[in-house]
């Protein structure tokens, strides 16, 4: 096993999967010669040719719409959206077609496409390069969503998404593209969708998060060391959601803090809280607390740290729960 950065693990997954399955195509803005603005697709065009990795016009709805047609012609497209917020023009195709077309054919045709994109804030970028848009995707029937937090999972979840018979959106934490580094299995490596990862075992409180919020939750757990034993649950897959892992952890600790960087209202943390309210309320020793971004546009980057969930805010939430 070699150590890889998160973005290198994504690139590795694309190489391995395209090698394995000749029906896989990679398309998006600047994914070819440049290898993507984050280099996630570097080397693919050189290795597999311009027919299997191509630069598209700058048109996100067109990219996803043609990917639907490519599926119908028998291809398995992997689409890159250059940035989180750049994917919004494609929501029309996603909601109206990607999530519905299989149903529309009463299951006769499959749309095994993957949409991957860098997401999230904290990178000192211009407006609309910082969003955490998972809720839009999770809320769309017919579409699955995965968000890795580690290099190994970035590779394994992307491979699972590409192999899945349904459309899958994979959000990659761009903040950790080049900060997270770990040993990544060589060759084929698949992390099944719908299986959470217990990032840290603990007994007093469960910090539930995904993607870029996992390293943050781990730092909060460190900060609480000696004061409380924190369990950190990395959901990895928002749909399907590993409810068993979620309920098992919370029944053990009796306390839950859910962390997301997206705005609070109707965000995924609300879904997690609702599942706990419906299925674990008698195991809980206090309210389910959320630490989230706020219901405002993602701010000017000089003050973005005030918006992003911080170690201090997570620690504060955990302390409030422990004191209750």
């Amino acid at each position, binding site marked *: 096993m070699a150590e890889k950065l998160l973005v290198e693990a994504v690139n590795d997954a694309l190489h391995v999967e395209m090698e394995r399955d000749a029906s896989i195509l990679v398309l998006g803005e600047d994914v070819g010669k440049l290898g993507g603005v984050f280099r996630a697709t570097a080397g693919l065009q050189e290795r597999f040719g311009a027919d299997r990795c191509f630069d598209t016009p700058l*048109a996100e709805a*067109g990219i996803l*719409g*043609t990917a639907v*047609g490519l599926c119908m*012609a028998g291809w398995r497209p992997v689409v890159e959206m250059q940035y989180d917020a750049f994917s919004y023009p494609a929501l029309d195709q996603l909601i109206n077609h990607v999530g*519905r077309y*299989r149903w529309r054919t009463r299951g*006769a045709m499959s749309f095994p496409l993957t949409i991957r994109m860098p997401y999230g804030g904290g990178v000192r970028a211009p407006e609309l390069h910082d969003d955490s848009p998972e809720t839009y995707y999770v809320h769309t029937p017919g579409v699955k969503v995965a968000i890795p937090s580690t290099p190994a999972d970035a590779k394994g979840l992307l491979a699972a998404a590409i192999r899945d018979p349904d459309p899958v959106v994979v959000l990659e934490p761009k903040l950790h593209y080049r900060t997270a580094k770990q040993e990544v299995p060589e060759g084929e490596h698949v992390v099944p969708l*719908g299986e959470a990862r217990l990032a840290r075992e603990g007994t007093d409180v469960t910090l539930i998060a995904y993607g870029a919020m996992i390293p943050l939750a781990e730092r909060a757990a460190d900060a609480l060391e000696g004061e409380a034993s924190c369990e950190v649950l990395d959901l990895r897959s928002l749909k399907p959601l590993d409810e068993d892992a979620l309920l098992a952890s919370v029944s053990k600790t009796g306390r839950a803090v859910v962390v997301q960087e997206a705005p609070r209202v109707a965000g995924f943390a609300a879904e997690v809280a609702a599942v706990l309210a419906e299925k674990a309320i008698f195991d809980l020793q206090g309210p389910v607390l959320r630490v989230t971004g706020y219901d405002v546009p993602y701010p000017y980057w000089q003050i973005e740290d005030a918006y992003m969930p911080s170690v201090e805010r997570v620690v504060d939430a955990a302390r409030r729960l422990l004191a209750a």
Partner: protein
Amino acid sequence: MSQVLPAEGGLRRVIGDGESLPDGEVEGLGDAELLALYRDLVLLRTYDERSVVYHRQGRIGTYAIFWNHEAMQAGAAFALEERDWIFPSYRESAIGLVRGMPASTVLSWWRGHPAGWWNPEDSNVASICVPIGTHVPHAVGFAWGSKLKGEDRVAIAFFGDGATSEGAFHEGATFAGVTKAPAILFCNNNQWAISTPLAEQTAAPTLADKAIGYGMPGLRVDGCDVLAVYEATRDAVERARAGEGPTFIEAVTYRSAPHATADDPSIYIDPERVEEARESECVGRYERYLVRAGVLTEETIESVKNEALELMRAGIAEAEAEPPADPGLVFEHAYADPPATLADDLAELRRILGG
């Protein structure tokens, strides 16, 4: 075949008026083909007229009428091979009939019964696209994907004049041009998007002019002239098969029926203009042409119409005989591999329904 610049100005026409305007003919079409095309036209006309009646009788739901659009649908489809794919909008809901799709299937769609949701691969007709113009990129992606596989398949997308204002049309056309996809973008310009006339839809002199911006030829054709539509589409198909890329066809007609059964055009449309359009409607025009050419007799007209009526009678009977759909179908087909929660939801619903 026209060049990319400029788009065609006048409308291509083959059928005359039996008086001052002479009839032309299309090379390569013998009597058998001319009659087959007539059958397609009558089939679509009969489907449409019976559907309006079925709606009034409460036997189908809201229905998007395509009266006087039959020449565009039948003419274009006639220029394709069975292996070519058709991407219809709701205005072309019954276009599968010309490829042998059962009338009961399309009627079931308008009845909201799952039996109406067909497998596109059965007759190479994609699902009906309801959101405007968003299937243009699908047709382009399909055509491009087929080309990448080395397959000789053309894709045609049908849409209306209003759709050319949509971003999806623009993006699909852009991709088609860049990838040289063997695609045909077929615009049925009936000059109305529900109540919005073409002049309020675009400032472009013609819709075919838009094609220039995507680097593809823009053909203009009389949408009530089935032979002109056929010929123009055949040109586009030849161009696509030769690897020269996509073509935009603007077929001009005038919407002479409501947008749908729920629409009341008396609020916005000029009834005299509608009456004028109805007088030169496409099925009668082709019928008279064939009679003048000595290809069609009163007897054949009668038998073709009866055949179509019989097909519709059988179709609605079959659609109405479909057993009620099981509520469990709500949970099927959205995913190949569904989240476990769907099974829980189904179990709960079954318990409550007592099923």
